[in-house]
């Protein structure tokens, strides 16, 4: 940008009404685009509730599905944190150079779009060429166990990322102090390290939990006849939404199930947060001789071994398994067919461009309206309002994505009918990805010492200039990783997209293919379709990474 223009903006940012105007706009947009529409959507359809409340069978089915959701979410997030801790420990505290590679590999399930991930796991655990090739018959068939495995896999990178960050951020001296006071490594970890990073452990748990509660697209692929909340909503949609006389049954059950999921999730989070501050890790007692044995050599080696085994066998290999048919497809006529856009492939390529367009739009809008919000939350610009916003920001990730889509649709379609579908889609993706970005950024901004900013202000820098020269350079990596989370989440999103519109993004098309809804699709087509999605996403992320490379850690 020309220098003159930059200076002009800097000067403008010093004007109080402009500065507050920017913050206010961000808050208003948050309420108008992200928080209120889904809530209002539910209120609009409140009367449809009668449809389901009068139908005992349906209520029982919905409740059962919701119960399944919570059982799986709790199970999975506990396992994720338990499996994530030793892995994060290995990455953050180990000494080998290979750990960098491991660190990057841990992100893979995040790069693979969730719908593709679901398919990949399906192939690996129950397909003919997967593990069953060794064990005969499918090892894990569609159903709750496969859903649990899937949820474990896609939450794993988030959990590891959060814990590694926390382990790297806090001062290693606390651990060293504990060691010099006579505590062997295990006692140190238990009483000091985890005590200090407890907020991050809770955050990891909450993120894994929320993801498990709300994920729809991939879950549908592996669920079979098993129903959790989002799958139930989707099944209702498939069964009733097409028939105008029955559509209220679908609407009613969607609100019913979503409402329970949202309310109970909020209660659980509140409970976890309160418990988190009350609950002290067991630091009163120690068993020196026993814990010492567990701290060293064989026990530590076994711990690392198990952590790696879990990572490779349950997370990494199943995630990438889908790439195998893609390789095979390269040597058949599927490749030319795909590249020339024959038959169903033309729809695929269209959907792919739509997906990336959407991802780019969501990322851009998030930076625009999420950044001021992150500053408000991190710097507590508006007192109590800031603390309140801090809580509200998380809500969109606990709403099941399919329900979020549905309620967004109820709201936008029936109040502001002139808004085109593509915008609905953008709003839905914005709402789903917003918390990730704001969380990543506000945490990073909080870590910058306020003194640094104030020092720069006293040297005469205008607010925008402070941001450009101080805040931005120090949070660039977080901004980048926030943007990556937004982009990948948007590109892989399935549930809300399905609910909100009939426009098809790549994951939606792939789900169609896998579900057998499109004639003439073979396993090779699916493999190749997934392969392209992974490959192109990977290239985009790599390119982004190279652009910011050298300008920060990672």
């Amino acid at each position, binding site marked *: 940008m020309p220098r003159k223009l930059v200076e002009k903006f800097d000067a403008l940012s010093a004007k109080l009404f402009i500065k507050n105007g920017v913050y206010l706009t961000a808050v208003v947009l948050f309420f108008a685009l992200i928080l209120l529409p889904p809530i209002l959507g539910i209120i609009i359809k409140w009367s449809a509730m009668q449809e389901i409340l009068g139908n005992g069978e349906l209520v029982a089915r919905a409740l059962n599905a919701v119960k399944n959701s919570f059982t799986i979410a709790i199970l999975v997030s506990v396992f994720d944190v338990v499996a994530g801790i030793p892995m994060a420990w290995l990455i953050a505290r180990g000494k080998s150079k290979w750990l960098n590679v491991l660190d990057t590999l841990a992100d893979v399930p995040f790069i693979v779009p969730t719908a593709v991930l679901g398919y990949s796991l399906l192939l690996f655990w129950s397909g003919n060429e997967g593990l069953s090739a060794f064990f005969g018959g499918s090892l894990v068939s569609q159903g709750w166990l496969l859903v649990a495995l899937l949820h474990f896999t896609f939450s794993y990178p988030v959990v590891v990322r959060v814990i590694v960050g926390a382990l790297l951020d806090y001062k290693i001296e*606390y651990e*060293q102090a*504990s*060691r*010099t*006071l006579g505590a062997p*490594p295990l006692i140190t970890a238990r*009483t000091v390290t985890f005590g200090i990073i407890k907020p991050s452990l809770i955050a990891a748990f909450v993120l894994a939990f929320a993801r498990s509660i709300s994920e729809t697209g991939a879950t549908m692929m592996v669920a079979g006849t098993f129903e959790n909340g989002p799958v139930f909503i989707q099944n209702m949609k498939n069964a009733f939404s097409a028939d105008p006389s029955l559509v209220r049954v679908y609407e009613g059950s969607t609100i019913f199930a979503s409402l329970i999921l949202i309310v109970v999730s909020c209660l659980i989070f509140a409970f976890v947060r309160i418990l988190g501050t009350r609950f002290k890790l067991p*630091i009163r007692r120690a068993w020196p*001789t026993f814990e010492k044995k567990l701290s060293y050599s064989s026990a530590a080696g076994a711990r690392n071994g198990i952590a790696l085994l879990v990572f490779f066998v349950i997370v990494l290999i199943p995630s990438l398994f889908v790439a195998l048919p893609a390789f095979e497809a390269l040597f058949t006529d599927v490749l030319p067919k795909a590249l020339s856009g024959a038959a169903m492939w033309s729809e695929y390529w269209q959907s792919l461009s739509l997906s990336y367009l959407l991802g780019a739009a969501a990322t851009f809008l998030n930076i625009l309206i999420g950044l001021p919000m992150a500053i408000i939350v991190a710097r507590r610009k508006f007192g109590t309002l800031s603390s309140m916003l801090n809580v509200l920001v998380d809500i969109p990730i606990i709403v099941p994505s399919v329900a979020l889509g549905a309620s967004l649709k109820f709201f936008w379609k029936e109040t502001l009918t002139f808004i085109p579908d593509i915008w609905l889609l953008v709003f839905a993706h914005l709402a789903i990805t917003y918390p990730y970005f704001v969380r990543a950024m506000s945490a990073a901004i909080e870590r910058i010492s306020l003194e640094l900013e104030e020092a720069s202000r006293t040297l005469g820098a205008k607010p925008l200039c402070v941001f450009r020269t101080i805040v931005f350079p120090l949070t660039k990596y977080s901004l980048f990783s926030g943007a990556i989370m937004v982009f990948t989440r948007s590109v892989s999103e399935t549930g809300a997209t399905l609910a909100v519109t009939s426009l098809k993004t790549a994951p939606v098309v792939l789900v169609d293919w896998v579900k057998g809804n499109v004639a003439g699709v073979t396993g090779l087509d699916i493999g190749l379709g997934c392969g392209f999605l992974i490959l192109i996403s990977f290239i985009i992320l790599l390119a982004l990474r190279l652009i910011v490379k050298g300008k920060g850690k990672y």
Partner: protein
Amino acid sequence: MPEVRLVNVSKKFGKIMAVDNVSLQIHDKEYFSILGPSGCGKTTLLRLIAGLIQPDDGEIYIGDRLVNNVPPEDRDIGFVFQTFALFPHMNAWENVTYGPRVKGFDMQKAERIGHEVLEMVKLHERLDAFPNELSGGMMQRIAVARALAAGAKLLLLDEPLGHLDAKVRNELRYEIRRMAKDLELTAIHVTHDQSEAMAISDRIAVMKKGKVLQVGTPQELYMNPQSIFVANFIGGANFLEGYIMETRDKNAVIELRGGLRVQALKKGIDRGERVVLAVKPETFIIERDRGKKKSENSVSGVIERVAFEGTNIRYEVRLENQDLVVVVTPSLACEWFNIGEKVILSFQPESAHLFVYPETGLREEMAVE
């Protein structure tokens, strides 16, 4: 029992030799300081002793035990960190009793020890305060109490007073020494502050760029520095360049720049050698120049600057050869001089220190980094 012995210990970080072939022997119940400018490897040396990092080379003994492969929790030490490293999620009392608890003592014993050490650091109020609610001085006391409570006989302190303001710092340094002596501990105290080290240590090791240059009592280091660096670092000195004209039994006659001649102990340095003469500011005797014949070992000059420092007066004197020297005299005991006055400076040959001129130059030799 806990004497500490380092034998040829080295530690590298990438290309930096943080600790370079250091051998040291610290006696039982000694209050020992490691003194040097920042970045010279003091912290690294202390961490090696604590087992928080491993040496690349050499052996470390605590008592009779080779501890190279012993983890920190088994070395039986107490460590006070520069930033205190009080556990932020535990209150003062929990911090202090942490050691006894993790060592598996029963609760009663842990609490008794807790009260004992808090008695010792005179901090019994505010036990339920968290570290972020405590002042620097309080945090420091809690940190020391926590290290003592673990019951170790070897106390390692990494700039324990570095984060405190001057007044608190001066009080606490004597207190720490007193506690170490009362409890008959061996203490190793790292600091970059020479006055702190001089005031409280039985012996001091002076470090520079990873190497130990000299070990001795504060008096030895002061009276008999064996290098230009130590002469400069301990108390400071004026450095005058010249060469040895002739030798007379113990003494050498040195011709300074501009033809001035003075004498000092020759210390085995030969005639013709280029030398540096170190004269401490407080060893000069300063007199008004009354035009009388100059005494034996003296030079004349003009007062260029005067600073009243309270206890002392500090003069900067321009010598005839244009060298500038600093002279410090007690403010109450001597005559005062004004800017522009002509004075005569003299000193005893035994009180100055002669060094061979360093190959790398004087400035490089004194550089702290």
